[in-house]
Each structure stands twice: as structure tokens, then as C-alpha cells.
């Protein structure tokens, strides 16, 4: 019951959705379950608006609950933005170019009011050649890196990026590309960095991705970031398609050049289906007609099957790395990483290999 209600909240305010919000207050148990889901899926801004505009009728207590959840989420949003502008300043001082991804950029650009879009971390894209310097800047600013890289230089050549917890207990993700594994490695990062969109937070000018590249980033995140896409990620996609009219020909051309046509088609069809929106945008027709070949289906499954996806993605990525020396360097790093990479999570390299081989074996048996 709450899954359907939550999808209706995620679709609140979208033109053309056939989702319907309840016409009377929910019972206490259903409301509590819905509120918990809405909080964890970062939909409290949309719920707050639905409740305040009476599109979603509530009891007085439920109204208060929705307001409290909304204010908590916005407190987090401004705390995250405080960290964002501080890091953007520091990175600019070290001449590290930055693009703000997802949450704050999406909230300020694509939603009628930024309070509708909650977010839980900061995502920054930096160029490969500046990645190591960016890591040092974030560490100096108080960032505690969550995982070391397998070997020196691995991050700037092969990884999606790395995560930090700041002293203020907020998470910052530094990205080099959009996703890990084979689909992340075939993205042409020159395309990503070619254009940008500028916005300001406080008195700091920031750069985000241009419209079409931003949509592609969201599609990669929605289709490959979690086994089940988050509703807020799907809402972002529909929000952009329906409100900003991205250039479908450019989106498709970039997606195909990056080998990600199936990724984008899957994200767009899933978003429109889950939010029950009949879209007349050309991207909807293209995505609906897209046919994915068997090899690509197998690659997509590496990201979306339940369980630890990393070993399968890491192995599948080898084919996407150009040149034998680079492939050898990559394999050496993932098969024989530094001890500092192994020790926090495994008792020995042997244990790590055993677990990875079991995961990969399970993936291929499922095939």
C-alpha cells in the first residue's frame, strides 16, 4: 500500500501523471510507514508541499509530522550547501575545476522551488587529471576518506570516485565519472566537461552540468546506482524531461557514443512507468522503442542484481579499458591491491579473492 502511496508522492505536481493522492487522511499506521519511506527516499519536500496545499489531506498531527520532516530535510540541505560552497572555494583556490552533480544543482535548477528537492550528500565531479589534488583538498578540509584506492593512481585512471565523511558528519562524494564498472569507463569525459551551467549558492558561483549531460548523469545514476532505482532519482528525470525540454537528439547521440543507450532508455522508461506519466517528449518514444542486445543486458545485470555488485562490475570493466598496458595495470590493482586497501575489510588477500570469486560465480550461474 505504501509503495503506491509513495510513488504518488513522488509524482506530486507532475503534469500528466495518473497517480492519485488519497482523498482523506490515512490511518496512523499507514501514515507512519509512508512517512518513514518518504524520509529515507528524500521525498519529504514533495510530501510537505502536497500536505501544505491540501492535495494530500492529513490530520493535525500528520500535518505537523510532515512539517517537521520537511524542516529537518531542509536543515540538512543548507548544512550540505555550506560544506559545498566551502569545498568549492578551496578547490577553486587550488585550480581544480568542479561540476556540482545531482542534489543541490537539481534542486535549484529544475524544481519550481528548491525546497521540493531534498538530498543527503554532496556529489562533485572533478577531471581525472585533477583527481588526486582534489582528494588532498577535501582531506585538508576535514574529509575522512571511506576507502583507500587499490593502488596509487587507480582512482584517476579507472575508478568512479571516492567518498568522504566530513567533520560535520555529512558525506561528500568526489566523482571522476558517473558510475563504476564498464558503463562508467566508456563515458567520454571530454563530452561531459565541454559545457556547463552556472548557478550561485550564497555568494559563491558554481558550475553544474549542462542540461543534456545532467539528464544523462541522472539516467546513469537511476539505472545503475541502485538495484532498485530511488523514486527521487526517477522524479528528477521526469522533472527535467517535462519541464526543460532537453534536446533528445543530443541526449541520444551522447548516450550512444558512450555505449549507454540501453542505460538511458531503461532509466527513462522506468521513470515514466513508475511515475505513471504519459510523455509526448521524443525521448519517451525513443526509449520505449529501444531494444537492448544480450551482451548489454548481461552488463546491466551486473549493476542491478541484488548483492555485492562490485566484483562482477570490476571484471566486466576490463573490456572497456583501452590498451593492453592499461588493462594489465587495472587487473594488477584489483587482483593484487595494496595491503592498506585489503586490511580494513578482509583478513587477507585470500579471503578477498574467495569472496570475489564466489560472487562472480553466482552472477554467471544466474545468467
Amino acid at each position, binding site marked *: 500500500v505504501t509503495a503506491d502511496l509513495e510513488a504518488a508522492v513522488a509524482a506530486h505536481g507532475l503534469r500528466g501523471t495518473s497517480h492519485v493522492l488519497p482523498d482523506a487522511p490515512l490511518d496512523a499506521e499507514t501514515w507512519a510507514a509512508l512517512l518513514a519511506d518518504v524520509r529515507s527516499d528524500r521525498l519529504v*519536500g514533495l510530501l*510537505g*508541499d502536497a*500536505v*501544505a*496545499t491540501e492535495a494530500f489531506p492529513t490530520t493535525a498531527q500528520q500535518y505537523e509530522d*510532515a*512539517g517537521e520532516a*520537511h*524542516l529537518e530535510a*531542509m*536543515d540538512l*540541505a*543548507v*548544512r550540505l*550547501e*555550506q560544506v559545498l*560552497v*566551502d569545498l568549492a572555494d578551496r578547490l577553486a583556490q587550488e585550480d581544480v575545476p568542479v561540476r556540482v552533480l545531482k542534489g543541490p544543482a537539481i534542486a535549484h535548477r529544475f524544481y519550481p*522551488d*528548491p*525546497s521540493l528537492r531534498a538530498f543527503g550528500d554532496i556529489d562533485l565531479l572533478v577531471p581525472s587529471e585533477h583527481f588526486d589534488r582534489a582528494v588532498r583538498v577535501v582531506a585538508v578540509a576535514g574529509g575522512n576518506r571511506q576507502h583507500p584506492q587499490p593502488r596509487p593512481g587507480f582512482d584517476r585512471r579507472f575508478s568512479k570516485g571516492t567518498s568522504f565523511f566530513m567533520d560535520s558528519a555529512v558525506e561528500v562524494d568526489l566523482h571522476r565519472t558517473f558510475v563504476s564498472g564498464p558503463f562508467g569507463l566508456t563515458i567520454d569525459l571530454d563530452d561531459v566537461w565541454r559545457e556547463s551551467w552556472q548557478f550561485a*549558492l*550564497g*555568494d*559563491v558561483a558554481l558550475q553544474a552540468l549542462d542540461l543534456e549531460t545532467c539528464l544523462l548523469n541522472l539516467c546513469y545514476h537511476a539505472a545503475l546506482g541502485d538495484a532498485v532505482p530511488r523514486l527521487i532519482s526517477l522524479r528528477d528525470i521526469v522533472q527535467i524531461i517535462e519541464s526543460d525540454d532537453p534536446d533528445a537528439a543530443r541526449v541520444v547521440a551522447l548516450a550512444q557514443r558512450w555505449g549507454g543507450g540501453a542505460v538511458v532508455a531503461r532509466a527513462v522508461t522506468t521513470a515514466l512507468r513508475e511515475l505513471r506519466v504519459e510523455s509526448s517528449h521524443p525521448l519517451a518514444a525513443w526509449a520505449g522503442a529501444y531494444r537492448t542486445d544480450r551482451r548489454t543486458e548481461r552488463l546491466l545485470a551486473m549493476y542491478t542484481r541484488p548483492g555485492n555488485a562490485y566484483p562482477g562490475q570490476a571484471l566486466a570493466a576490463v573490456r572497456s579499458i583501452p590498451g593492453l598496458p592499461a588493462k594489465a595495470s587495472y587487473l594488477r590493482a584489483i587482483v593484487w591491491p595494496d595491503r592498506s586497501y585489503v586490511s580494513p575489510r578482509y583478513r587477507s588477500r585470500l579471503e578477498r579473492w574467495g569472496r570475489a570469486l564466489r560472487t562472480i560465480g553466482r552472477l554467471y550461474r544466474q545468467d
Partner: protein
Amino acid sequence: VSDPRWGREPGLLWRSTPFAVVVRSRRSEETTVLGGSGAKVWELIDPPVTVADLAGRLAGLYSADPAIVASDVTATLEELERRGIARSIA
């Protein structure tokens, strides 16, 4: 000499929700939550206004005596200034 005007401190991070306004300055370790008339004051000081203008508008909104409202408004503005989110402009 004209009355000072009151406006928002530049460079703030904020959200206006249907329930309250959430404001944080770049250097602050605290978020300020403004509800009711505090949120209205926040809304009306952009662009900057004098206390008399602000009190007049609030008195109209709440059908109150402008003289009494002016005293409350001054206290509110001083509190916002103390929190680093509003300032008087000579």
C-alpha cells in the same frame, strides 16, 4: 538623515517551506528556523526596508497597531542581526 533600512545578510543559504524558513550563514554552526511572523519579516526585508515600512506592512497584514508592531519588529530584526542573517544598511 533617512532611517536605516534592514535587509538580508548577503551570501546566506536558505529554504522557504510552507511550514517555516530555514536559514544558515556560511560561517554559522547553527541553522535558524523562522516561523509565523519571523518568516514574514524574512520575506519582507528583501529588498531592504525601513522599520516603519516593515511595521506598516505587517500591521496591515495582521490588523494590528503599527506602533506596537514597530517595537516587535525592531526586536526581531536585532535578533536576526545577532544570528548573522539580517543587517541594517545606513
